């Protein structure tokens, strides 16, 4: 509720700022922190990337800025409409809605960039002004939520009530957490394993809320995981493939991405990456594939990344580089379908808690 007011005020004052400049006969301009790579720093205190002090100025006087400037103002206007009327929109939808105002974007990428600009200007995330990516990640577990969206206010739902799990969409993200018996959160990269965990009643056996990230976790999911961690004080364990890309999925949930350096409240610094580690590949003698050139290149990049400075990460990167192999989560199936749940999972939860 509070957030919504804050968002509306923030958008309105942006409008007022531009209006006043024009009304006084000036070309309107907006200042915002630069998102260029030279202005992105890792802040060890907040344990995520942040933007430095560099600012950029978008001015309607500059012919090259004019179009993006107008698009930014339109996006602000459109977001205000959405928030005002409690409607939501997807990135794709924004792209098309613009055409109704003769404000066409060249492509999806352009409209996404402008939305990121607006986030930077306002210091809010797009979910705050009701623009969401397509839903693809999901949650399952004993958590009762209460919706706050129009038409569903006060309506409650237990997240075990749908055997196919519940999508993490805008309505869920904005819902209140009412109660839970769970004492941990397990985030899983892949849909196959997520389904296996539900079938094997991992949520009951381990008292866990299961979250499917479906690859790189969308921001709404990252925010949702953070809320589970902060509001319900639940520890978070992340299971990914045993390769540099899986590692990084975990890392983005923990420490955020450079792309979202202008945003806060998307990270869960205390979350743990529980596997599949490079050392697991060795210890569990998992079936493997050789590392590709891009995998190796990525590992060297990660080795230099400030987010990866902890000994655990460095050790795992070195091990990957030494064994030159990678393994998927499904690799555990060589020991039978339930091995991962019966043996591996408890061991890893133990190890990383």
């Amino acid at each position, binding site marked *: 509720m509070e957030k919504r007011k804050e968002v509306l005020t923030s958008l309105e004052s942006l409008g007022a700022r531009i209006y006043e400049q024009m009304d006084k006969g000036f070309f309107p301009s907006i200042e915002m922190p630069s998102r260029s790579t030279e202005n992105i720093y890792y802040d060890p205190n907040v344990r995520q990337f942040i933007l430095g002090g560099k600012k950029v100025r978008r001015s309607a006087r500059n012919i090259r800025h004019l179009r993006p400037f107008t698009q930014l*103002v339109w996006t602000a206007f459109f977001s205000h409409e959405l928030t005002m009327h409690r409607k939501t929109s997807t990135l794709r939808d924004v792209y098309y809605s613009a055409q109704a105002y003769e404000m066409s974007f060249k492509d999806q990428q352009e409209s996404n960039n402008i939305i990121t600009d607006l986030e930077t200007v306002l210091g809010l995330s797009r979910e705050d002004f009701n623009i969401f990516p397509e839903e693809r990640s999901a949650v399952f577990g004993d958590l009762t939520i209460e919706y706050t969206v129009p038409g569903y206010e006060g309506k409650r739902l237990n997240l075990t009530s749908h055997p196919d799990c519940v999508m993490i969409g805008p309505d869920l993200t904005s819902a209140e957490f009412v109660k839970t018996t769970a004492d941990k959160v397990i985030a899983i990269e892949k849909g196959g394993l997520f389904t296996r965990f539900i079938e094997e009643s991992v949520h009951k056996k381990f008292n866990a809320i299961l979250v499917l990230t479906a690859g790189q976790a969308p921001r709404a999911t990252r925010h949702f995981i953070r809320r589970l961690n902060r509001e319900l004080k639940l520890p978070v364990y992340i299971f990914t493939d045993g390769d540099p890309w899986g590692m990084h999925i975990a890392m983005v949930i923990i420490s955020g991405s450079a792309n979202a350096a202008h945003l806060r409240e998307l990270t869960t610094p205390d979350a743990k990456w529980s596997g599949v580690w490079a050392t697991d590949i060795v210890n569990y003698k998992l079936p493997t594939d050789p590392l590709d050139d891009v995998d190796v290149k990525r590992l060297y990049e990660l080795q230099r990344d400030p987010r990866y400075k902890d000994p655990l990460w460095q050790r795992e990167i070195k091990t990957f580089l030494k064994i030159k192999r990678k393994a998927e989560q499904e690799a555990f199936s060589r020991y039978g379908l339930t091995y991962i749940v019966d043996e591996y999972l408890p061991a890893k939860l133990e190890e990383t808690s």
Partner: protein
Amino acid sequence: MARVTFEEISAADFFYRNRDIAGFTNPSRAIFAAIRELVENSLDAAESLKIPPDIYVRLSHEGAVGTGTQVYRLRVEDNGIGVPPRHIPSAFGQILFGSKYKLKQQRGTFGLGGKMAILYGQITTHKPACVISSTGMSKIYKYKLMIDIQRNRPLILDRKIMINKTRWRGTIVEFSLEGDYFRAMPKILEYFKQTAMVNPYANLTFVDPKGRLYKFTRVTTEMPDPPKETLPHPYGVDVELLQRLINATPYRNMLEFLRYHFHRVGDKTAQKFLEFSNIRPSKNPKRLSHEEIVRLMHMLKKFKEFLPPDASCLSPLGENLLRAGIVKELKPEFVAVHQRRPATYAGHPFIVEVAIAYGGEIPKKEGFVIYRFANRIPLLYDEASDVSVRVINSMNWRRYKVAPDMPIAILVHICSTKVPYKTVGKEFIADRPEVRREIANGLREVARRLRRFLTRREHVYREKKRLGIFSKYLPKIAQFSTQLAGKEKAPDVKKLLRSVRRFGTEET
């Protein structure tokens, strides 16, 4: 041992046997050449009196001969000077007889074309030609003629004299010939269009065998000054010409001989030349031996101090008329014309006129539309061999901001007392370095002007686009920020729009 027989043939006989060199190669070329030669004679006839020409051409179908080839009757009427009655038979019935063996710029130079056409008509249909002419005096003369090919003499079959009540002046030529109009049609129509382009003061009417009427109307009655006759320039003479002058001269010494028979040779120049060539000024030209005449010719060519020929014997179209003609026929968006100063090659004066036109009705195609003219005659065949085309192709057009797909027409007109044609058919101009240089310099000049036009247009376009962006987006920013701020009335963007308008970029 085979016996070789020698016989003399007449000029008519020669061209009868060698009609290819005069352009009467095949039925389609022949009909084109016939129309062209007669139209050119008519234009010359009107221009020599500075009368705006009115020319009517009718081609009617008379009968079939074979596939494609048909018999046509060609009638060409003009309002020109007319032919004096006693000259009519020879002027139309004797090859290489005519009024054109003088040193001034004319369309025809050999006195050949019109008669070639009549000769061609006679050998293909064996019908007499009909010539009606009056110089505007009290009588009109009508002749029915054939050419005695072996003797190169006119045969008068019938002669009528009529009272000229209306004081009509002009010439009508009518005869039958074989030809293939439908194959020749594109070239004939192109010929009329291009002729209209460089003769904007002429009315041209053409009625084709299907009865279709093509009319090219004059846009001006202003005409270029007719050329003056001129003496030969010393650089351009040969032994034969010297011999003829010596035979005819009334002067008894070399000084006067040079002064009065040559172009741009005065007393001083004549003296200097005689000194240079070691000839006594008092020498009687009639006493020159054959060897001395040959030596004289070589010395004339060697002497560096003769002034170049002046251009009074030339009648270029002039920039205004050229522009008027192009605007009339092509309706371009932009045209630049340029007349070069007179120049000479081998003692012959010449003037190059060039034009470049952009847009309008000029078709967009790969490469330029090229119009070539010599003494106001369109040159329609053998484009690739022409010097103008070579010059155009060797220029770096990108320097002038010209892209290959732009609708651009280039016109090159060369006028001279002796156009350096490569063939009697008058189809393309030889690659003489002096001519090439003039064409190249002329084209560079108009190309520079085209570049200025294109640059400016691009600038205006870019400026318009820039203003367009401001006037598209500023009102939107105003609108959305007003709604976002919850205000009633949008801020006025007119002042902001005015301020982005750069100095000197008014709407054009």
